[in-house]
């Protein structure tokens, strides 16, 4: 641990790195930790994706084909938990780890050891969660939302589920604290808040959402634990509690959580569109305020997830109007992205393709969200495939497309090599076509009344389910191209320049590609010329 001793022999090494397994296990380097986050997220993306394939295979035809209903429900439950906590969130944190120190001109994150712990918790937390598949009673099958009393019927896996959630919460809180400390305290001289790249802004706001809501999730699952094992009656009316109370506490976390998933995606898209439109971001300040407004409002809309639960009418109305109001700042953002492209000299490299399709397809998800925000209409859509289509539109061609855009955008910076543009474009077009084939028919299925989380369905739903399943398998297979592109790019390729993209501006593009092990060893001076745009 002694810096002095380690340093005596290493003065001549300009950029020495720790080596072996220890480099990763004990890392205090934001780039190494960022890489681990991204690799972990990619692995979990395929784990969660494999579960989605089981779901789509079972739903290819009516009747029970491949798995029993309990296992099917485990698949939907664990698919959600893996994708949310294992793929999208870690991918966002991985990008934050890699990019924030470089964007604000610091050598590393503010609290590097904490950073390491935030990452390493993840594989162990998922070991707890996924081990439940091999336990009496099986894996959680009551939906990722863990509603009581159903979730309390889970077998030996129950405490493992709860502790996995606690563990993941600890990781998120530590990570969020680190991001806040980094941005507030490690900015280079001259890097004022209103010069921060938008990706950094969206991440600060996301970090606040994490710190405010993860402890509430921890509290709600703790109450589940005590209801099951210690005789409390939080969620039992016989003892004066209420199962609906869990839904309130859970969604107080759950709704900000969806912005935790999407705000970093907004940030990525806000970096990429100006770069490829070769124009500064339109309405930078309004983007900051819109992001903050979305985050603020997200604390007052949670009960739109439970319109059909039997709330008092005033509650239904309040949450309906509050939900509608989020469309305003979101509209500002969509408008600004489009206005940034307006009369820009655009080119469509892979990151831009993903970013533009994000704007279009995320908006579709946003509109279906508005539809369900209308209380009386939601009574029709609730718990059908319409909601499944809605949140997959905002999460897959929404959050995940933005994350992929970010990976393609920054991959040359990380590796020092250009990725294979032709393969990238093939990956994009296959993904964009099949993601729509996968999820668009689910709107029709939902409107026609097909319920979610059921392994069997009425024969009238067969055709669109088949289309959706074929789209699903093709989309899943297309993602293997991403893996190939990344491996190829890490191993070699055309040398990337420091700036990489003609229209890219900001501190991260002033560093060499790949950047040195510690990004900025002395603070750079930030002027208007080196700021984001």
């Amino acid at each position, binding site marked *: *641990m*002694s*810096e002095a001793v*380690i*340093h005596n022999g290493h003065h001549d090494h300009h950029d020495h790195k720790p080596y072996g397994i220890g480099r990763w296990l*004990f890392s*205090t380097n934001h780039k190494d930790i960022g890489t681990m986050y991204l690799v972990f997220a990619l692995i979990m993306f395929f784990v969660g994706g494999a579960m989605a394939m089981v779901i789509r295979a079972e739903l290819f035809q009516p009747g029970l084909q491949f798995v029993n209903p309990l296992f099917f429900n485990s698949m939907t439950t664990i698919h959600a938990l893996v994708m949310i906590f294992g793929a999208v969130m870690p991918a966002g944190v991985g990008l934050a780890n890699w990019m924030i120190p470089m964007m604000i001109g*610091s050598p*590393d994150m*503010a*609290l590097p*050891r*904490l950073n*390491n*712990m935030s990452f*390493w918790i993840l594989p*162990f937390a998922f*070991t*707890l969660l996924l081990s439940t598949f091999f336990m009496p009673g099986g894996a959680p099958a009551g939906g990722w939302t863990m509603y009581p009393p159903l979730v309390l019927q889970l077998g030996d896996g129950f*405490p*493992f589920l709860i*502790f*996995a959630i*606690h*563990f993941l919460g*600890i990781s998120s809180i530590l990570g969020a*604290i680190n991001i806040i*400390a980094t941005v*507030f*305290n*490690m900015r280079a001289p001259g890097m004022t808040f209103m010069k921060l790249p938008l990706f950094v802004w969206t991440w600060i706001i996301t970090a606040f959402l994490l*710190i*405010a*809501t*993860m*402890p*509430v999730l*921890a*509290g709600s699952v703790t*109450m589940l634990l*005590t209801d099951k*094992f*210690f*005789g*409390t*009656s*939080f969620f*039992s*009316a*016989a*003892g*004066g*509690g*209420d199962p609906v*109370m869990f839904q*309130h*506490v859970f969604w*107080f976390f759950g709704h900000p959580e969806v912005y935790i998933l999407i705000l970093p995606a907004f940030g990525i898209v806000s970096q990429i569109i100006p770069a490829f439109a070769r124009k500064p971001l339109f309405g930078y300040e309004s983007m900051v305020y819109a992001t903050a407004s979305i985050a603020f409002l997200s604390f007052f809309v949670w009960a739109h997830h439970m319109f059909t639960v039997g709330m*008092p009418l005033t509650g239904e109305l309040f949450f309906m109007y509050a939900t509608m109001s989020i469309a305003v700042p979101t509209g500002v953002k969509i408008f600004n992205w489009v206005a940034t492209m307006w009369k820009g000299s655009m080119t469509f490299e892979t990151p831009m393709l993903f970013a533009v399709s994000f704007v279009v397809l995320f908006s579709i998800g946003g509109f279906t969200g508005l539809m369900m925000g209308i209380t009386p209409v939601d009574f029709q859509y609730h718990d059908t495939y319409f909601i499944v289509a809605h949140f997959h539109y905002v999460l897959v061609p929404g959050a995940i497309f933005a994350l992929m855009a970010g990976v393609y955008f920054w991959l040359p910076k990380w590796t020092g090599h250009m990725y294979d543009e032709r393969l990238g474009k093939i990956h994009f077009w296959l993904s964009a076509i099949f993601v729509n084939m996968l999820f668009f028919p689910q709107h029709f299925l939902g409107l026609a009344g097909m319920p979610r989380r059921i392994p069997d369905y009425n024969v009238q739903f067969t055709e669109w389910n088949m289309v959706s399943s074929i789209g699903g398998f093709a989309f899943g297979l297309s993602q293997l191209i991403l893996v190939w592109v990344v491996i190829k790019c890490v191993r070699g390729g055309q040398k990337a320049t420091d700036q990489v993209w003609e229209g890219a501006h900001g501190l991260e593009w002033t560093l060499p590609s790949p950047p040195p092990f510690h990004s900025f060893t*002395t603070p750079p001076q930030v002027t208007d010329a080196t700021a984001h745009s």
Partner: protein
Amino acid sequence: MSESHSAYFIPEPSRWPIVGTLALFVSFIGGAIMLNGSGFGTFILGLGAGAIIYLFSGWFSDVICESIRGSYNRQVDTSFRWGMSWFIFSEVMFFAAFFGALFYARIYSVPWIGGEGAKLPTHEFLWPMFEAIWPLMTTPDATIEGGTTAYNQIKEVIPAWGVPAVNTLILLSSGVTVTLAHWSLKKNNRKGLCWWLFATVVLGFLFVTLQATEYAHAYHELGLKLSSGIYGSTFFMLTGFHGFHVTMGATMLTVILARSIKGHFTHENHFAFEAVAWYWHFVDVVWLGLFIFVYWL
């Protein structure tokens, strides 16, 4: 790496994060196996808890050594301050979840089961004899004649103006004594620092002891238990998590006291002291919320 970055401090690779992860992992596995009814789990949980203690002493002794060696600059100090403040905020939100449960039960679920508003049929059909009162002494399922109840019925609750009021005084005084200790430290008065800290630690553990006797009283004489319906659930979860935080805080204060006696901290460089003092004020404020909403109103 500190000399290659004159302006920055980056810690060397450290084994503590992975040790911490493993310690928590082992504890969670042990806890889960224990809850599933195997005594073996308790043993594993014990191992995990031991590992957590090892982790804290090891990680913090590294940090203390670095601090004493002068590796930290003002920027690191500020990072620690941001870190601790937002950690405390996350703790506030953890308590908010349980306060939310308390308010929900008092404002909504209990009156609804008692027949208020649109939920009249629930009352009529399930528990027509149930009366919505707070504290909820008799759980709904116990109001059916000849039926069985899953919950302990309460004979009496703990009144606010007995021991809880004394405890309020104790915690508020401890907030004063820790501030006096801080003032002494800033004036380089080592003796004052140690004695006021000692007083804070004594008050802290006195609070925990009084809470423990109250718990024993509630369990043995009042029929007030964790399993006494929603009143017992909210009462013990809120005061229990608070008591746990006071115990942690008092333990941290004890460490700070030991370090003060050893001569650690200077009048301008003593963030560890301040962090623990912040934490102590936080448990103090949470207690005020508990005293008002759990005991008093």
